[in-house]
């Protein structure tokens, strides 16, 4: 038993590149979000479900913002005038995924809805 579990895990890991490749087959769809006046533009975005996405967030403000989404496991500071790119996993149909700017949480709120 002591040997079998690690071997199983290794096998499982060895199989994953194949899984990952099949999932990446389609190019991720690019979604652009701009931060202006501590708000997201657009604030509500409909995205296709079950497809990998590439989120490109541009901070058009002079001040930094921490772009964060707990459900998408994103947490990164974007300095003023810069942009950042995030890879997003395929999302579930009908589900809404919130994101926010931690430095201006009262105004910087947005969500992705998978259709």
């Amino acid at each position, binding site marked *: 038993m002591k040997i079998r579990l690690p071997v199983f895990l290794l096998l499982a890991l060895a199989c*994953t590149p194949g*899984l990952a490749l099949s999932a990446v087959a389609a190019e991720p769809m690019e979604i652009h979000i701009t931060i202006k006046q501590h708000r997201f533009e657009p604030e509500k975005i409909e995205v296709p479900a079950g497809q990998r996405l590439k989120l490109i967030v541009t901070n058009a403000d*002079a001040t930094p913002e921490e772009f964060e989404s707990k459900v998408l496991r994103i947490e990164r500071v974007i300095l003023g005038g810069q942009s*950042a790119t995030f890879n997003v*996993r395929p999302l579930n149909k009908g589900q809404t995924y919130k994101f926010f700017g931690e430095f201006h949480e009262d105004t910087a709120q947005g969500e992705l809805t998978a259709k």
Partner: protein
Amino acid sequence: MIQIGIVVFRETLEVAVVAALLLAATRGIPRRGPWFLIGLAGGGAGAGIVALFAEAITEALAGRGQDLFNATVLSLTVVMVAWTIAWMRTHGAMLAKEAKSTGDRIREGQAPLYLLAITVGVAVMRDGSELVVFLSALGLSGQVTAAGIMGGFATGVIAGTIVGALIYFGILRAGIKSIFQIAAILLAMLGAGLAAQAAGFLISAGWLPPLIDPIWNTSAILPDESGIGQTAHALFGYISQPSAIQVIVYVAVLAAICWLGFRSPAVSAAKRPHPAE
């Protein structure tokens, strides 16, 4: 000012949990107060330096610099926590009995004091650097007065300290015999949670495959954004929608730390070249 306070509080929370657990774990070791303060001050200075290079870190490695920086710092913290627990297993219980002379206690307590200072320092550096970026930009923008920033900062830090104090005194209330066990168990879960968080940053940087993502979804029962969700995240590393690799990392690190900290104590006592057993 309240808004600033909330941001500061959130960044302080993680430091507060780490500090409270480590302070409980090193209870009874002389001179841990100064070491703790050295850690805080060193971490604060480190946060300022990291913030200065924020732009360089962000642009490093094709935009992955921040994720990798966070993953590295979190992993370092996990190693420190594991080390502390390993130390507690052999020495902590004896310190708890307070049967040692002060000289012995200082000698035996040296290692965890370095660990305490470094771990607290690293935690302050990571969360503090984000705060420095946030607060300095607020100051430069001129939208908020210096007094407003100071007030918000103080409010957040005080709130974070209160949470840390509640955890610390909560553990102490358990009584001298259980303090080390409770602190060790909480530290083990904290370490596993930080490791899972580090794995999350590595996935985000594309350096680790998420495998099944997410492996489950409990956001309907306990949302991450809720107060309980955030507390559970800070304490046990709760994530409502983890990927399979994060769960694997969590379990593996928890198992490794528990093995370090809780494997049969009799063996270690026999190994220790201490005459007065």
